[in-house]
């Protein structure tokens, strides 16, 4: 064991920092700091900047466009991106379907899809959850029936993030109704969102923002060659994904940045010279969060440093639980610090000028963010489900 960063790692951090700080446009950084749902244009633009630099998918294997960095360096890179208020790249291509494709996809599928994901030309959404199938994902009822060279898909998806601007969906569907879903009954199919039979209806969430949708699939025709990997392997692939998703859902770099900004806000004197951080209760809550985040960060590093095969689902689940709770707690403290300015509703367009409560420009977005983050303990496998996984895997309970 060697628990220190090497001089080379430090040099690497400086190199990344120099690039990222100058590469993020100021208005984009401001929008990221505000913390709403990132506009597609920002996702695309930042994706392109990183692509041109060769850094868009550090976690991918080199042969598919990765950087070959160690897990630690990837973490340093992500931390620097967050510290510079770079947008968080769209998840579904780079984090979910991309790794699925290079691990299980056919040569044709890799050829067709990986490049556009890296370039940010094609955005994806994940069509897994359904009204009747959330935690019990294997029970999905959307069907994909073979018809000649095609599959014909029928069903309804819900909570589909970014479906309103995604170009493609990867969709979990029942391809064989005669065998149990976990034993060959499910497959993943990839198709264009812009085609007859696909209807997207927005769902407004409690923060009054729009990032999730309902998607209705009505006789959507998909060529059989667009079934990911092998038919009947849907459940295996889904589990592979959820494991991936949970590690990155620890969201350490982002939480670190949020906490930094929060501390800065608490330390800034107001017009009469008073500082929130002088309140002992607030000082302690900040300290507690910093300590808990440090623990989470080192847990992430430990998991990332272990060989891929030895990573257990349980450790990934642990990171997801802690990571989501820390995100929620940081956002709650930020909201608490607003005092009475937590009462007004601030719309998406409230960025400057005479804001309600004569608030400073960093106030809008804070209330909305803590509301939206209630979802962090629900999505990507609810925290109750993660605890069940740990109890089963580690203790056979």
């Amino acid at each position, binding site marked *: 064991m060697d628990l220190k960063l090497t001089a080379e790692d430090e040099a690497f951090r400086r190199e990344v920092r120099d690039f990222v700080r100058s590469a993020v446009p100021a208005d984009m950084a401001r929008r990221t700091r505000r913390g709403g749902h990132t506009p597609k244009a920002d996702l695309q633009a930042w994706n392109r900047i990183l692509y041109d630099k060769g850094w868009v998918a550090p976690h991918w294997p080199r042969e598919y466009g990765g950087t070959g960095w160690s897990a630690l360096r990837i973490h340093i890179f992500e931390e620097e991106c967050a510290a510079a208020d770079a947008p968080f790249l769209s998840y579904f291509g780079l984090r979910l379907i991309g790794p699925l494709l290079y691990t299980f996809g056919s040569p044709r599928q890799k050829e067709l899809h990986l490049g556009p994901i890296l370039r940010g030309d094609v955005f994806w959404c994940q069509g897994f959850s359904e009204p009747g199938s959330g935690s*019990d994902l294997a029970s999905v009822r959307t069907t994909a029936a073979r018809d000649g060279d095609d599959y014909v898909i029928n069903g309804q998806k819900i909570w589909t993030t970014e479906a309103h601007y995604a170009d493609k969906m990867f969709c979990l569907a029942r391809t064989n109704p005669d065998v149990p879903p976990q034993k060959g009954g499910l497959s993943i199919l990839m198709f264009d969102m812009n085609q007859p039979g696909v209807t997207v209806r927005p769902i407004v969430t409690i923060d*009054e923002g729009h990032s999730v949708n309902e998607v209705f699939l009505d006789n959507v025709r998909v060529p059989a060659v667009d079934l990911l990997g092998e038919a009947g392997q849907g459940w295996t692939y889904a589990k592979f994904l959820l494991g991936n998703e949970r590690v990155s859902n620890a969201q350490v770099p982002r939480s670190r940045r949020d906490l930094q900004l929060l501390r800065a806000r608490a330390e800034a004197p107001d017009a009469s010279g008073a500082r929130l951080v002088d309140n002992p209760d607030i000082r302690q809550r900040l300290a507690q969060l910093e300590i808990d985040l440090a623990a989470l960060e080192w847990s992430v590093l430990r998991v990332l440093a272990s060989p891929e095969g030895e990573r257990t689902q349980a450790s990934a689940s642990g990171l997801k639980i802690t990571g989501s709770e820390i995100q929620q707690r940081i956002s709650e403290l930020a909201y608490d610090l607003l005092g*009475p300015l937590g009462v007004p509703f601030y719309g998406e367009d409230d960025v400057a000028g005479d804001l309600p409560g004569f608030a400073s420009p960093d106030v809008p977005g804070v209330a909305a963010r803590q509301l939206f983050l209630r979802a962090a303990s*629900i999505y990507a496998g609810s925290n109750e489900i993660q605890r069940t996984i740990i109890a089963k895997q580690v203790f056979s309970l």
Partner: protein
Amino acid sequence: MDFSLTEEQALLRDSARRFVAEAAPVEQRLAAARQGDGFSRDHWSAFAELGWLGAALPEEAGGFGGGMLEAAIILEELGRGLVGAPLLSTAVVCAGLLARCEGYAERLATLELVVAGESLLALATEEPGSRYDLAHVETAARETAEGYRLSGRKIVVLDGASADAFMVSARLFGEARDRRGIGVFMVPFGTPGLTVRPYRTLDGRGAADLVLADVEIPSGAMVAGPDEGWDRLAEAADRAAMGAAADCLGAMEAAIEMTADYLKTRRQFGRPIGEFQTLAHRLADMFVAAENARSMLYRGLSFLDAPPAERARAVSASKVAITQAAAFVGQQAIQLHGGIGMSEEHPVGHFYKRLQVAGKSYGDLTFHMARYVDGDAAREQGA
């Protein structure tokens, strides 16, 4: 001690409960609240007819002889039904303050209008940076030949978007945080120099900021003078805090009932999710939290007529306990609903937002915790 309701109180609760049950469904009301005032004028007329607007006032002041217990009974039901109406601001906080200001010549006339549902009042005490400190008053009141000239800014005036008049704290003399020197003034909407900037709150009600630029008011508009202003405001804010707490109790209990129903009907893995013990226990914890909160509601109410230092300490204890319980209950209500709990179309998230706004009305967690601690320190020094 007697925790049972009197016959009149039970009738009041039943009529409030019936009113809320018979009002439009929550979803419809929430959508309506987005437009206009954030509440229904029809409701307001009904409140007047039902006698609710005078329920917390002594008979001498034109009310029906009740007090904060009666107000709490009504407010709890309004919270339960997510009814957005300025009852707390107008009929409890402002009317209660007016009732105690016997030197104010318009006292009875104003209260009569309030009780009849013909006048909406809002309390304007918060200023940029004041963080609930009622003594932090930079808004200035200067004496003129005819009365007073007010200048300053007030923010987050609850229910200020629809108020017919504002009760504004302003400083006649002293420094920004002195308790002495603060007067309370009645400023009607439309007075030259007064700009009202309305907006809606996180939970869909109406609030406003005020800009007072050389607002001229007659000398009779002073509701409370500089020697008693702060005391009257402090009493009013403590009653308001307990009123907001009652609203929270109703909202909490409704969120718990809604969650319990959901656990019985939502099925995953072939059974109602309420059969998963972790969820059943969570619901039990929510119940326990709400029970403790109710105890603190009654305890806080019982101290409202105590000497000021004791009253402040007890109200702060209640507000801390209830705000913490509300956070837990509101968050878990969403959590146990899963994805649907995140949808703006589902009522459960609205309960959470209502609880959050109530938690930030008339002192937030940080304010009340600090006030409790300061009260303790003062007692130790005094002893």
